[in-house]
C-alpha cells in the first residue's frame, strides 16, 4: 500500500485502535495482576492467574458446557435452517407470508426472547409443560430450567428458535441463486431429487452455509445474555459457559484480574475460530 492509502486510513485506524485496542490492552494488563473491581493495591502476578484458571477442573467443566451449547445449538440451527430453506424454496400459496414470519424470531432482541422462553418453561403455568402433559409425554409439570439435567437443553431450544431463521435465510438466498436453467438441465439429464440436490443445489449452498455456521459458532461460543436471563448459569452450574464465568469472576466476585485472564483465554479461542472463518472466506474468494 502506498503512503497515501495509509494516510487516508489513519483516522479510522486511530479510532479503531482506541476503541478496540484500549480495553483489550487494559484487559491484558489486568489479567497479569490481582486487581479487584473496587480498587485497592494491585500486585503483578505474572502468569499466576492463568495457571490458576487452567489448573481448576471447574474451568474445564465450563468449557465443556460451552462446547455442548455450541454443538447442540448450532447443529440444530443448521439442520432446521436448511430444512426450512428447502421448504420455503418450494412454490406454495402464502409462501411470501411464511418467509416474512420466519424472520420474526431472529428480529427479537435476545433478552425478550429469553424472557419469553422463561415464561414458556415456567414450572407452574408454562405452555411447554401444558403441551407436554396434554399430549401425554410427561405426567407432571416440571421445572425445565430448574433441573441440571434439562436446563442447558431448554436454553438451547430457545436459542435455536431465535437463530435458525438466520441460517434459513442465508440458505434460502443461496437456493435462489441456483440458476433455473441449471435445475432444468439436471431434470433433462435424468437426475432424481437426491442427485439434483447433490449435483446442482449443494454446490451453491455449501459456501454460504459454511459462512453462516461458522458465524453462528463464533457467536454461540461467546453466549452470555440468553443464559444470564434464563438461568444465570445455574442450576448447579449446569449452564455456566465461559462468558458467564468471566462475568462472575470479574463482577460478582470482583476478581478483575482473574476474570480478565479467563476473558483473555476466551479471546484466544475466539481468535482461532475467526482465523478459521477468514480462511474459509478466502478459499471461497479464490474459488470464484
Amino acid at each position: 500500500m502506498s503512503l497515501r492509502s495509509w494516510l487516508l486510513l489513519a483516522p479510522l485506524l486511530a479510532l479503531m485502535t482506541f476503541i478496540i485496542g484500549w480495553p483489550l490492552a487494559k484487559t491484558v494488563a489486568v489479567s497479569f495482576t490481582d486487581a479487584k473491581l473496587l480498587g485497592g493495591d494491585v500486585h503483578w502476578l505474572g502468569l499466576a492467574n492463568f495457571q490458576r484458571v487452567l489448573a481448576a477442573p471447574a474451568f474445564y467443566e465450563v468449557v465443556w458446557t460451552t462446547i455442548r451449547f455450541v454443538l447442540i445449538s448450532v447443529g440444530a440451527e443448521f439442520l432446521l435452517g436448511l430444512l426450512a430453506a428447502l421448504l420455503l424454496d418450494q412454490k406454495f400459496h402464502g409462501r411470501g407470508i411464511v418467509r416474512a414470519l420466519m424472520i420474526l424470531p431472529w428480529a427479537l432482541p435476545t433478552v425478550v426472547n429469553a424472557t419469553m422462553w422463561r415464561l414458556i418453561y415456567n414450572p407452574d403455568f408454562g405452555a411447554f409443560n401444558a403441551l407436554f402433559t396434554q399430549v401425554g409425554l410427561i405426567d407432571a409439570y416440571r421445572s425445565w430450567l430448574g433441573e441440571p439435567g434439562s436446563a442447558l437443553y431448554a436454553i438451547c431450544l430457545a436459542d435455536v428458535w431465535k437463530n435458525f431463521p438466520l441460517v434459513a435465510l442465508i440458505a434460502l438466498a443461496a437456493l435462489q441463486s441456483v440458476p433455473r436453467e441449471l435445475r432444468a438441465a439436471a431434470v433433462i439429464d435424468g437426475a432424481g431429487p437426491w442427485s439434483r440436490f447433490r449435483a446442482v443445489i449443494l454446490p451453491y449452498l455449501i459456501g454460504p452455509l459454511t459462512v453462516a455456521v461458522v458465524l453462528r459458532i463464533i457467536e454461540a461460543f461467546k453466549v452470555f445474555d440468553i443464559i444470564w436471563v434464563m438461568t444465570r448459569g445455574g442450576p448447579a452450574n449446569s449452564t455456566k459457559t465461559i462468558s458467564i464465568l468471566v462475568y462472575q469472576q470479574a463482577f460478582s466476585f470482583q476478581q478483575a484480574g482473574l476474570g480478565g485472564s479467563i476473558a483473555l483465554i476466551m479471546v484466544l479461542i475466539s481468535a482461532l475460530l475467526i482465523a478459521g472463518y477468514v480462511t474459509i472466506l478466502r478459499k471461497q474468494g479464490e474459488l470464484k
Partner: protein
Amino acid sequence: MATLTLQGIKKRYGPVETLKGIDLDLEDGEFLVLLGSSGCGKSTLLNIIAGLIEPSDGDVLIDGQSIVRVHPKNRNIAMVFQSYALYPNMTVARNLGFGLEMRGVAKADRQRAIEKVAAVLQIDHLLDRKPAALSGGQRQRVAIGRAMVRDPKVFLFDEPLSNLDAKLRVEMRTELKKLHQRLGTTIVYVTHDQIEAMTLASRIAIMRDGVVQQFAAPQEIYERPANLYVAEFIGSPGMNFIHGELRRQDGRIGILSKTGAAGASFLPLAAANLAAADAAIEARIDRPVILGIRPETVTLANSSTAAAPHLASFEAQVEVLEPTGADTLGTLRLGADQVTARLRPGDLQQAGGTARFAADMSRASLFDPETGLRIS
C-alpha cells in the same frame, strides 16, 4: 432420427394466453428455428417440447407418439441453454457424462462416449477443467457436447449463441450448421436473431404473441412474407413499404403511390404477380394496398432496365447515400414513402438530386393494409 409434431399447443398463465395454438410439423432431420421478438413465447414452446413446462392444451409427438405425459428425462431430447447451465462443481468430462451417469450407463461406456463427443467438438484437452476455467465459446461447446453425448432424437437450443461476442457467434453458427449436417438430428432452435435463423434453418417459424405468423423455408419467408409483420421482421435493411392504391392504367395493373412532394408514381405489377392471384387483385382495384419491395430489388434505371417488363421504373428524390463498402444504401423518396435501395457504389455521386430507378416487381409483395396479409 425423428419427426416432431406440435398440435394445437396452448399455454395459459392465469388469464394470459402465452401460446395460442401452435401447429408445426417437422420432418426427420429438420432444423427448425423459432424466431420472434422478446416475449413472444419461443422459450415457453421449447420448454413444452422439453417437458419442463406443461401445455394447457395440445399435444407433442415424436415419431408419431405423444410425449406430453412422458417425463423430460424419458423424452429422448437434449437441450442446450442460453446460459449453458453447466454444473459448476463438475469437470467438463463429468458434465458431459452426467446424463449417461444418471441413466446408469457403465463407466467404461460413458468414458468412450465422452471421448468421442469431445473429439468431435475439439474439447478433448479441456476434459479435466471445471466450467469456471473455460471461455464462453468453450463452455458453449461443452453444453452442446452434453446434449450430443446421449444421442437424442431431438435437440433443443434456446438462444445458445446470444452470450457470445459477435465474432465467436458467427464461428459457432457455422459450426452448428456443420454439426447438423453431420449428425442429421432434428433440431428446434430458438433465437431472435434473423441472420441466425436465415443461415441455420431448414424452416423458420416466425412467432408473434404466441401465434405462428409463417412457417416456411428461409428463402420463402424472405421472398414471400405471409404478412406485414413477417415482411418487416426479416431482412436488414428492412423491406420498403409503399402505400398507395391499386389502379388500372393504360391496360396495366399497378400501384399508384400516394402523392408526395415529387408527385406520385405508378408501378405496374409484374406478370408473375398478376397470374398468382388474379381474382384477388381484380377485386382490389381502386382500393388501398401496400407494396413491399426489398432494397436490393431497386436499382438505378438505365437503357436495359427500361425494356424489361418486370421492372417498374420511377423517379425519386435521393435524400441520403450511405456507403457500406460492398454497396451503398440510398434513401429515396417515392411518393409519400421513404424507400431504401441497395445500390452499387458509384451508381450515384451525391445525394440531393433526383434519379430514375427500377424496382423488380417480380420480387415484390402486395399486402392488404387492413389485415396486413399478403395478397400476392
